[in-house]
């Protein structure tokens, strides 16, 4: 019994807090004399965080620190073999290219001799090959670790810097310096109220295997960004973005440690959306936000890549953790596949070669078993799947590529049509609610009826019309006319990025009973850019992730735009 209790205590919230405040994890030299209680608590949190992450866990905040110190980050590691020991490449304020290699933990003499030294030699010796870097300029090399160096290692580096590496000496950043940099940047927003601090701790200590609580996270990050505070300078806005990136890094570190890629991507998507909200609301020029957005995006990409690798290595088949996975497993597989599809469409829009590397029969077998339908929000991956296979297989199977769209449309007609009694949950209800509802676990019953209305039906009709599917739509039209087409239009474009928006119009319209095909196609081909935030127009590759996390923002206009940008990407690159 004693053993069981002590095992349980390992994951206990209190034991973590106790460890945190007793400073067990820390080896910091912070000056505490003038700090308030929350500052100290907060510093301990950062200390705890930094001592518990590996190099992947602090890469994003370190990139943000560099941006805040005036560097331009031009390469952010995707951890491939071609990076020649350079995890981050940046150009400093004076135009000097700098290469950083990130490590975790203490570097002992053995570790240095057997592994790290060789990598550092590559870091120093191999020139930076990048279009933004002048190859005639010698780069500066940095070894960064969230641990310490053994004295012998330090002496060895001093010796090499004085001799062999004299022309390009290695600079070293270790735990204390890193911690101070993170705390300094984070102190732009230090929780001032117990409630703020509690929310941060709730997020920081929330279950690492679950999804992020979107409302809780966005309420918190809105405060960090000071989104509703007018009159701040643009430089202040830039600092607030930097701080938001750091706080988010702390929050997602548990996901990264657990390799819960989906929750990390979900949280980073929310962060990106709120950075865009700030940029859009205050009309910030790129220099104030795009650097931070860029490194967060790269972090999303490398995390998505890790998700893809997990799926490739039979992660979907081996996900079972309890007897309930016979039921719950399908929802978990759905999440994995939906985020993977968002990733692939983003790559396609960015014209990255790897977009096509899941187009195998083996993958489609996995996919077939993972497209779980649990509400209207779960139909968005069907649209992504169509966009994907339309580009990958349109020549081989011109008709089969439309199957996902027909399945989605038929599902709406079946569950939300005139003969249905209950209806699918609207996109305002998430996957957790859907699972709770299915097993009678809701804290509060859902007092809403979904029959004869749908948020996704118009986007599906329009995308089929854009692709000339008249015959098929004719077959569905009678049933379509019974279903009202719902949408929500936020009052201003920056509000699209808010998790919930106080101002805006809920619109419910019926399609015409007798509909002219010509008119339908004409309207389906018209994209009203007035209702698409400028930042999305400029960074359309973010849209697949944005709509996956914010399915309640899906409108026909967004789907038409997505179809358009995917189409454009293909035309130009293939």
């Amino acid at each position: 019994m004693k053993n069981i209790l002590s095992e349980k205590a390992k994951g206990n919230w209190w034991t973590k807090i106790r460890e945190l405040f007793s400073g067990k994890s820390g080896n910091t030299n912070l000056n505490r004399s003038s700090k308030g209680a929350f500052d100290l608590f907060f510093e301990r949190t950062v200390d705890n965080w930094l001592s518990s992450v590996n190099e992947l866990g602090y890469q994003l905040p370190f990139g943000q620190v560099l941006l805040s110190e005036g560097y331009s980050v031009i390469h952010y590691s995707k951890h491939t073999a071609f990076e020649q020991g350079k995890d981050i490449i940046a150009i400093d304020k004076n135009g000097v290219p700098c290469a950083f290699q990130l490590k975790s933990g203490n570097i002992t003499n053995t570790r240095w001799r057997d592994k790290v030294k060789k990598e550092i030699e590559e870091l120093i010796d191999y020139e930076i090959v990048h279009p933004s870097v002048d190859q005639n300029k010698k780069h500066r090399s940095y070894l960064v670790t969230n641990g310490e160096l053994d004295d012998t290692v330090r002496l060895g580096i001093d010796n090499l810097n004085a001799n062999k590496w004299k022309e390009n000496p290695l600079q070293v950043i270790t735990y204390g310096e890193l911690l101070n940099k993170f705390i300094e940047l984070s102190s732009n927003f230090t929780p001032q109220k117990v409630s703020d601090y509690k929310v941060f701790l709730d997020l920081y200590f929330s279950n690492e295997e679950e999804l992020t609580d979107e409302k809780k996270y966005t309420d918190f990050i809105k405060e960090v960004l000071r989104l509703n505070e007018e009159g701040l300078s643009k430089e202040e806005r830039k600092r607030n973005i930097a701080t938001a990136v750091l706080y988010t890094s702390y929050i997602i570190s548990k996901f990264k440690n657990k390799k819960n890629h989906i929750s990390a991507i979900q949280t980073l998507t929310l962060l990106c959306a709120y950075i865009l909200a700030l940029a859009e609301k205050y009309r910030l020029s790129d220099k104030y936000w795009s650097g931070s957005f860029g490194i967060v995006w790269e972090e999303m990409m490398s995390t998505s890549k890790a998700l893809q690798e997990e799926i490739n290595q039979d992660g979907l088949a081996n996900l079972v953790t309890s007897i309930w996975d016979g039921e719950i497993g399908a929802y978990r597989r759905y999440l994995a596949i939906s985020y993977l599809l968002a990733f692939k469409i983003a790559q396609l829009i960015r014209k990255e070669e790897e977009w096509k590397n899941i187009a195998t029969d083996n993958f489609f077998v996995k996919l077939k078993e993972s497209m779980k339908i649990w509400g209207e929000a779960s139909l968005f991956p069907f649209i992504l799947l169509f966009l994907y296979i339309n580009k990958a297989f349109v020549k081989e199977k011109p008709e089969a590529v439309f199957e996902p769209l027909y399945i989605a449309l038929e599902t709406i007609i079946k569950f939300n049509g005139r003969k249905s009694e209950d209806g699918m949950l609207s996109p305002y209800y998430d996957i957790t609610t859907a699972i709770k509802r299915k097993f009678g676990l809701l804290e509060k019953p859902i007092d809403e009826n979904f029959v004869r209305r749908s948020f996704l039906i118009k986007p599906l009709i329009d995308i089929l019309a854009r692709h000339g599917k008249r015959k098929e739509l004719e077959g569905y039209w009678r049933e379509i006319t019974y279903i009202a087409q719902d949408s929500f239009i936020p009052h201003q474009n920056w509000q699209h990025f808010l998790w919930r928006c106080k101002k805006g119009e809920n619109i419910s319209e019926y399609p015409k009973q007798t509909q002219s095909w010509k008119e339908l196609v004409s309207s389906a081909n018209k994209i009203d850019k007035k209702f698409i935030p400028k930042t999305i127009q400029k960074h359309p590759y973010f849209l697949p992730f944005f709509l996956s996390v914010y399915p309640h923002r899906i409108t026909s206009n967004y789907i038409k735009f997505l179809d358009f940008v995917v189409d454009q990407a293909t035309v130009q690159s293939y």
Partner: protein
Amino acid sequence: MIVDFVKIKKKLSQWADIFLREEIKRRTRFASRLGSHIIHEGDRASYETVDKEKKKLEYKKAESSFSLTREEMDKITFKEIVEKLKVVAEDMARQIEGGLFQTLSKGIEEAGNVIPGNPPLSPDSILRGLEMIKVDFDDSRDKPILPVLVMHPNLAKKAMEQEAQMTEEEKREFEKKQKQILDKKYEEYLVRESKRKLVD
């Protein structure tokens, strides 16, 4: 402070909320039959009728409350709270259903669906009403989707008495006329349905 049971109180408040909603539903038999939508965000809403008429949704407030002094709070039992919630439910239900009928009456008048002369309830007036409205079918003639008759309990009692007093021949005549109207309504339905299509 004296130690408290905050979580249990929170659960009880959640229970009270659900109980209140269920009691209101039970008391709004007509409104509860209709589908309800929740406005999750935004400050405005508009909708189209099936005839494509655009309308702005006007929010109507329904509210009720009860108040207690600290002394009363200190003594009130669970059973008494339940009784108070039932009173609130009754008040809310009256406002919700009353507001709904007001809106409905306005819409019926605007659409010209009031039986001319406002005749008293009789088999004849029911048939005249049926003639005036649009009737849908569940794809076949023998599955009409007939409207719900809503009436005051006194009137309902009177209607049942009238029905009981009808002779067999009167009943057959009523059914025959109703069938004729529904046959006509089915024709109209088929015409309407044939218009639900894509054209050039």
